[in-house]
């Protein structure tokens, strides 16, 4: 195995594309090194993207936030403006692993690892985040939900990798929230999860809503909840419809963490509770 630390995205992409064996991008390494040690992946080349220009920075862009692919999750919680604008994305990223893992793990890594249970992924999808992808044919912007295509699989072509993720600008009365169910309070993988992103009008009526669910399908699942939520003040009837829509959309499997029935029910409960939190935050 070889290790490379390119200094430009073009060089990184060239290295990835030119490797005849298996090449792997490394950001925080909190998935990659565990997989490597267990023999799950045996890369011939590791391309460390932490030293690319801007990779470790959060920059303001058109009222939104461009998060470099090497920004550790702990740094998200340290950016007050980001926490104020996207509290749900930050709380989702902050749930990933321990403080030690937080010092290394990235949201781009969480997305590209493509686990159906990746905690930041539903929040990024509900937020309408856009990944900037660099590859042999230049740069393209891709909505984050198009990156994972199945457990451990992404739509990234050979030589392509994510350089940053953009969280868009926010109107005044808007907020998001993320909840997961785990049997303990820390350090566990989501049994199922829900992210809700709401925009309210001046009267506190929901104008736009996006909901994404985790660990109830092979990839993150976005659910169209406009019919349930838009035009309401999130009364009980609206929340009931939301919970029903979430449970109806869920296509989970049964495993040691939970059964189909349990996940189907709980994901509705989580969507409902996350919507409440997002609404309260947005109305503040």
């Amino acid at each position, binding site marked *: 195995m070889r*290790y490379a630390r390119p200094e430009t995205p073009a060089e990184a992409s060239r290295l990835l594309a030119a490797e005849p064996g298996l090449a792997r991008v490394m950001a925080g390494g909190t998935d990659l090194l565990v997989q490597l040690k*267990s023999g799950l992946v045996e890369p011939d080349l590791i391309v460390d993207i932490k030293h690319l220009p801007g990779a470790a920075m959060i920059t303001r862009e058109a009222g939104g936030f461009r998060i470099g692919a090497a920004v550790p999750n702990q740094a998200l919680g340290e950016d007050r403006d980001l926490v104020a604008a996207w509290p749900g994305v930050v709380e989702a990223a902050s749930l990933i692993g321990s403080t030690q893992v937080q010092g290394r793990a990235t949201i781009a890594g969480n997305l590209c690892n493509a686990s159906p249970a990746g905690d930041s992924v539903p929040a990024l999808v509900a937020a309408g985040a856009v990944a900037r992808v660099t590859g042999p044919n230049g740069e393209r912007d891709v909505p984050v939900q198009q990156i994972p295509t199945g457990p451990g699989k992404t739509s990234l072509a050979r030589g392509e990798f994510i350089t940053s993720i953009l969280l868009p600008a926010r109107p005044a009365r808007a907020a998001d929230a993320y909840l997961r169910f785990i049997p303990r309070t820390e350090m566990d993988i989501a049994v199922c999860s829900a992210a809700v992103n709401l925009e309210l009008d001046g009267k506190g009526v929901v104008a736009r809503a996006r909901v994404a669910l985790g660990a109830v399908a092979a990839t993150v699942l976005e659910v169209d909840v406009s019919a349930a939520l838009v035009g309401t003040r999130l009364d009980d009837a609206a929340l009931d419809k939301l919970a029903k829509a979430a449970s109806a959309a869920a296509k989970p499997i049964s495993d040691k963490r939970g059964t189909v029935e349990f996940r189907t029910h709980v994901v509705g409960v989580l969507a409902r509770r996350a919507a409440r939190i997002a609404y309260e935050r947005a109305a503040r």
Partner: protein
Amino acid sequence: MTGTLVTSKVNGDEVQFIADPGETLLDVLRYKLNLMGAKEGCGTGDCGACTVTLNGRIVCSCLVLGVEAEGATIGTIEGMADGNRLHPLQQAFIDHAALQCGICTPGILVAAQKLLERNPDPTEEEIRYWLAGNLCRCTGYDKIVRAVQAAAAQMRA
């Protein structure tokens, strides 16, 4: 397999070592730099016994490659005491009997020191969450929390 020459700063001193690309920072620290404080409890990021600081953040050194340390600043438990004078956290761990076998202790001390640097007056809940990635099979955690609280109080005084 050819090694890479890596230069980094460990506990304030510049060090150089040759690392194989697959070698972890933990193995480099222990077996190339002879810093045996950080321990391998699991090797998979779950136990925190290998905790060190890397460029100002705490990390599991079992999930860092040695070659990644090029140009980095690293802090280990060996850098905590000031000569023979123990750090208040170290002293508090002794006074409060916050260790038994001691395997988890170096990692917990490094993690707790970073917590107190960021938050000199953490609540019990904040301490427990911050240290959630540091497993201890002996103490039941209570004495660890008390020791961190005591050290924090002393350091604020």
